[in-house]
């Protein structure tokens, strides 16, 4: 029992980061129907930015905040300068731009930050010494760091949901997502809302990147590949246009990954399933879900007309 709890708690911390990046994908997808393949690398670049600022003597929390703020601006600039003009050409052009950005931002990180390839040390915001944990029933432990990551992500998610549901800007974002023409006719500047969506997406990506780097105590050029993939899987699982789906998808994916990588060792004693293949199993589950519900668990499928 304690062990099960243990694995779930470990999974939730990782899963919360997936859900954060997945939320970033969803925010952009809802606005424009585009999938941002560069989401992970945008977050990576911002995380290197945070490292650089911190390296110049700024406390880590402020460095991350500053980097996230800059990422917010950067996200808006990318939307305005690249995505929007590309979108006027074709949806396909946007795919090309985001794939180009994926490579350009990753290698730009490599160019600007010396030692990025092998990795730069990244501090953590939470106590992570070997005995920094709560003791839970059944010999389970809950590391302060995991508690901290989960709590921060839930707090940010809460703020985002409040923004979507309770504020005027959030209403405008939902209007644009649901019916861009009627949003315009109701006085919403859709262009500004799309810039804002990319800004928010980049901002939460930056926070997600910093949290990952904190857990790894290191940031390198490959840090965000896996996280982005699992986040995109989480968004797919939940439904690309559902923020709630992103959160549920991310958390459950983290837990599934943690359970699959730990349990078979005890249960099946199989050499074929284990830590390395946990990701594969997670993806298999998603594939099955998609075959049954092509728009994900919480996504809405729209009828296409000729």
């Amino acid at each position: 029992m304690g062990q099960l709890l243990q694995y779930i708690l470990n999974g939730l911390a990782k899963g919360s980061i997936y859900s954060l990046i997945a939320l970033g994908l969803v925010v952009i997808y809802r606005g424009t129907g585009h999938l941002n393949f560069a989401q992970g690398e945008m977050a990576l670049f911002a995380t290197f930015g945070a490292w650089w600022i911190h390296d110049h003597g700024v406390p880590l929390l402020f460095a991350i905040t500053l980097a996230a703020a800059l990422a917010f601006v950067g996200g808006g600039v990318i939307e305005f300068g690249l995505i929007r003009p590309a979108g006027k050409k074709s949806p396909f052009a946007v795919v090309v731009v985001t794939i180009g950005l994926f490579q350009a931002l990753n290698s730009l990180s490599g160019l600007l930050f010396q030692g990025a390839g092998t990795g730069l040390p990244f501090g953590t915001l939470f106590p992570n010494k070997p005995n920094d944990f709560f003791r839970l029933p059944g010999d389970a432990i809950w590391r302060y760091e995991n508690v901290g990551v989960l709590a921060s992500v839930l707090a940010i998610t809460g703020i985002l949901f409040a923004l979507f549901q309770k504020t005027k800007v959030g209403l405008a974002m939902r209007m644009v997502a649901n019916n861009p023409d009627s949003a315009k006719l109701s006085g919403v500047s859709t262009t500004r809302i799309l810039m804002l969506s990319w800004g928010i997406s980049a901002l939460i990506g930056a926070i997600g990147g910093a949290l990952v780097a904190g857990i790894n105590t290191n940031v390198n050029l490959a840090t965000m590949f896996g996280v982005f993939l699992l986040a995109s899987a989480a968004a797919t699982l939940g439904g690309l246009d559902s923020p709630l789906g992103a959160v549920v998808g991310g958390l459950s994916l983290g837990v599934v990954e943690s359970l699959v990588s730990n349990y078979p060792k005890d249960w099946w004693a199989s050499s074929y399933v284990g830590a390395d293949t946990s990701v594969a199993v997670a993806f298999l589950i998603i594939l099955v879900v998609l075959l049954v519900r092509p728009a994900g668990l919480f996504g809405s499928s729209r009828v296409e007309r000729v």
Partner: protein
Amino acid sequence: MNALLEVRSLRAGYGAVQVLHGFDMRVNEGEVAVILGANGAGKTTTMRAISGMIQRKGSIVFDGEPITRTPPHEIVRMGIAQVPQGRGTFTDLSVADNLRAGAYVHKGIHIESDMREWYDVFPRLSERREQKAGSLSGGEQQMLAIARALMSKPRLLLCDEPSLGLAPIITQELFAILQRLNTENGLTILVVEQNANLAVKIAHSVFVLETGSIVASGTADEIANDDAVRKAYLGY
């Protein structure tokens, strides 16, 4: 009379295809104007040109201000609200949120009291205020679309084929409401309709649009007495 909307040599279209070939139109303050026309005559294009949803050339003046180059979200602020063809409600949003969306251009505390006012006019919306707009019936959605447009407190309401796909009895109810909005609230309304008989009954002035040009215009009585127009559009 004071012209609220004045259109001169309006040309507009989609990409390389020109739909409107330059016509003049004038809607006076406080009146109901109707545009009649067959499918493809350019009725919807006219509406979209006025509300700024498509590129247009010529001149559109609203209340003395030129709006030919103004983007749609600013035109709403100036006091023109459009009920697009096919309702255009926010189907994933609740009825209440749809009304709040309509009031997007306004700030503050009046919004909730405005909402109550329109719930009184459209009691069926009041019963369904927490329901998603997509779950409403066609007639209810049309009411919602109008209520939403009214939430922006427009001086000119554009209605694009409000009767489309509605049962006759609902359509009559709808036109009664439009007429009341005009007489009681003094709202200026420009309606595009295929259901010409009903529309001409509440209209002060009528424009007949054929393949992108206005071929006849006048007061409702004049048009109803014009043999050619009567035969073609009113069917008697």
